[in-house]
């Protein structure tokens, strides 16, 4: 797979956009401020500690979470290629067990998730040291547990993409399904949790697979509008997401084991 050109192109694009987006937050703020000035509103961007330790951890991680779809598309291409070129079949014939095959794909997912974590960690450290006026070491690591949550977030989503690829086996269809997943889940939730029953069973929402992945890192920016936000990783959310991750990979294994290839 490492010799496959599409892999490198997508990988490069992912890390480039991820890097540039997360590092350009201040420029975006400045742009917003200049736009705001045109409408007579003045925003003092220096009062928004976007890149200040320890806020920076959750801010950057939440933003980078939006980009995981790119990695997921790459995972889908890599697995559906194995079906399309029938190389999965030849690998099994050559003596790979089905589990070993899946294992190699899961390990790739782990690696991609780790690379994302390392990438964001380095960007956060660099930009943090540039923009933080005075670093208070006591609070430096507050919120760094979000990196663990981020790792689970990316890995869970890639596991989901891998499972989808193995179930559907066609790249185009799988990618469309992947893109629509959030919308499909949202529609299901709207239909289940009608306002009449919302109060009684609304708490069940957090158990939905994609919602559980999103819940790992809550949206941080509302705090700059003086709202209360969840600035910690909820253990319940981690547990639910981990269970789903195991299930995704298990379903992938079941399908792989039972199907003729």
């Amino acid at each position: 797979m490492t010799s496959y050109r599409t892999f490198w192109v997508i990988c490069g694009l992912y890390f480039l956009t991820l890097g540039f987006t997360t590092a350009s937050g201040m420029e975006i703020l400045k742009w917003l401020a200049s736009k705001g000035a045109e409408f007579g509103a003045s925003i003092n961007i220096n009062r928004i500690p976007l890149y200040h330790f320890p806020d920076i951890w959750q801010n950057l991680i939440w933003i980078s979470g939006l980009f995981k779809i790119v990695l997921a598309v790459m995972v889908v291409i890599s697995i559906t290629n194995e079906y399309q070129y029938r190389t999965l079949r030849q690998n099994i014939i050559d003596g790979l067990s089905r589990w070993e095959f899946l294992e190699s794909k899961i390990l790739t997912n782990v690696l991609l998730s780790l690379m994302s974590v390392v990438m964001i960690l380095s960007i956060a450290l660099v930009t943090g040291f540039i923009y933080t006026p005075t670093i208070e070491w006591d609070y430096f690591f507050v919120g760094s547990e979000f990196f663990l949550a981020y790792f689970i977030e990316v890995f869970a989503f890639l596991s989901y993409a891998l499972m989808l690829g193995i179930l559907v086996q066609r790249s185009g269809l799988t990618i469309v399904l992947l893109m629509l997943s959030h919308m499909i889940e949202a529609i299901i939730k709207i239909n289940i949790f009608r306002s009449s029953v919302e109060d009684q069973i609304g708490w069940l929402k957090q158990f939905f697979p994609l919602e559980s992945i999103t819940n790992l890192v809550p949206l941080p920016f509302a705090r700059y509008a003086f709202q209360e936000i969840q600035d910690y990783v909820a253990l319940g959310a981690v547990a639910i997401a981990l269970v789903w991750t195991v299930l995704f990979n298990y379903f992938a294994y079941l399908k792989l084991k039972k199907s003729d290839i």
Partner: protein
Amino acid sequence: MLGPNGSGKTTTLGMLMGVVNPTSGSFSWFGEAASNHTRKKIGAVLEHPIFYPYLSGQKNLELNAMIKGADPNNIPKVLETVELTSRKDDKYRTYSLGMKQRLAIASALVSDPIILILDEPTNGLDPMGIAEIREIIKKIAADGKTIILASHLLDEVQKVCTHFAVLKRGSLMHIGPVDDVGKGEEVVEVQAYHDDLGVLLQEFLGSGSIKRENGIFQVMMKDGYHSKDLNRFLFDKGIVASHLTTRKKSLEKQFLEILSDTSHKA
């Protein structure tokens, strides 16, 4: 392994190689239950050659060797065997069909397997390509390897195989050595200038079935009767045969017989 298209040759091999799940029945390799470890001792190419199109022949073989736990130093040797050394660094997708087939054989050989499974290795090749593959197969067989060959080209099987099995719609119809083809029943072709030759032939004690083709009678001989007995019988009746030959059954004939026999039963 013989059979018409769609008779289950590839499916059978697929089950033996762990890519198709059998609905019933069992099998073992080398006296042990089949697993991915037994598959590593077998070199197999089912249907079309399958490789990563964006990798070179060399890289593809390296991957195969890695999966099989084979020594990558075998790669130059097997590339030499299939005469692909000069193209080894080109991407697989630039290969011609014949080269793809040969690379497939190379990949099956890379682990120095005990058994080689080839599924229609000459499918879609031109006469020269077919001859090349056939030479390679004979060369490999001369090294003392067991080769399982699936094909519907009977001529090919008769030329390179020692044993054969016939499949039809997923069931085994026949199994036996290729040498046995042509033994047993003997067919004698006979022609004579006599109007009632057909009736007379039926009086001959050694006659099995009698067929007439282009004015020549084909007499299926019963056990223990040979062409000379038929000749003596005709001579005693005062008839001199103008044409008398013993025909050994070809594999093709036997194959068609096996298939038609069983379709009557079915």
